[in-house]
């Protein structure tokens, strides 16, 4: 995770301090977002749809689950398929897009380790809370259950879709910005570097 990363394409995220502020700000921002989804609509399914829409979009601000090799989001893209596609292109001798990202072994290990910690944390939260939640939900009257389920599931889903990225943002050391030569290096069809 070495190249300069920017939040919303504007705010550099090289220092760990800024990234920690981003993580805290991201989770605090969910409070008004969820409150807005909840109180703006009376119908449960519309609330759920609004929350679902926000859950789909907001984690992209952190990065990680993007399928673009030119993404400058704070967390570099996770999907392996991107890098396999790059490796295939390089093997075939095709030009690689300037500024495209390549994950090295450290980045792969950091990505996988962040997912391991995130998964373990959510696993224990679900395991320990599930019986209590099921008991309390079963005691609620039927009309109140869907709302209660949404209230219980929302924090878990927010964590589930963002915890690996926030772990990376919180734990990775300060980044050294790459030079412009390094970011624009590419291969011509003949294999010679420009």
């Amino acid at each position, binding site marked *: 995770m070495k190249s300069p990363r920017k939040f919303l394409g504007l705010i550099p995220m090289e220092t760990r301090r800024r990234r920690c502020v981003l993580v805290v700000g991201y989770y605090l921002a969910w409070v008004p977002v969820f409150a807005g989804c909840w109180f703006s609509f009376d119908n449960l*399914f519309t609330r*759920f*749809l609004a929350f*679902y829409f926000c859950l*789909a979009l907001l984690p992209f601000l952190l990065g990680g*689950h993007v399928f673009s090799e030119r993404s400058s989001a704070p967390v570099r893209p*996770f999907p392996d398929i991107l890098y396999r596609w790059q490796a295939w292109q390089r093997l075939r001798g095709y030009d690689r897009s300037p500024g495209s990202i390549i994950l090295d072994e450290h980045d792969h*290990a950091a*990505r*996988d*380790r962040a*997912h*391991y910690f*995130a*998964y*373990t944390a*959510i*696993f224990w939260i*679900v*395991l320990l809370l*599930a*019986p209590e939640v*099921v*008991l309390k939900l*079963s005691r609620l009257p039927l009309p109140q259950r869907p709302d209660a*389920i949404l209230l219980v599931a929302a924090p878990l*889903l927010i964590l*589930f*879709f963002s915890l*690996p990225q926030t772990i990376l943002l919180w734990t990775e050391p300060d980044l050294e910005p790459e030079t412009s030569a390094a970011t624009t290096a590419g291969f011509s069809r003949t294999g010679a570097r420009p």
Partner: protein
Amino acid sequence: MLSDNPKLTLRKRRWMVAAYYFAAVLLAAVAVYALHFRHVSVFLLGAYFPLLLSFIIVLGGLRLGGPVRPFSRRVGSDATQPLIQLRLSGRKSGENVLDERDIAVRDHAHYVAMCMLRFATWIFAMVVWAFAVFHRIAWLPITAGVGAFLLFVAAMSLPQAILLWTEPDPASESPAQLTGAAQ
């Protein structure tokens, strides 16, 4: 990342994973029945706790002795001692030290599991919402209950299942082969 049991071949491990998830689907039916008829104790005794126990015992990952070694780096040993244990007593210390490959495989299995669960969660949410939009309200509690329970089952066991399904069989070496290699 797997335990040192030569009898647990890749084929047997895959059958174990398939049987585990088949049993989970049956337990999902029990869970739906219990929750639908408000028999929470039936749910806890008939579905949740058996699933929990089976997950811990059958697949491993949390304790020594399962097909998958514990995910924690050292389980059952005194990991705080800085000195290497000489093990002069000859007794097994129960130590479970993961090497770099084990850690990489473990972490990658969790990454893949999380990607799969993420995709499954999206599909589940869309199905629930579609049921609501197309007015299948009567089926919604059952659909949501079954889906949530199956997601729960997957979340509890997916990394272990991935490891059991994908890890190759450990190479088995006879003593003759070992002494031949040493010479």
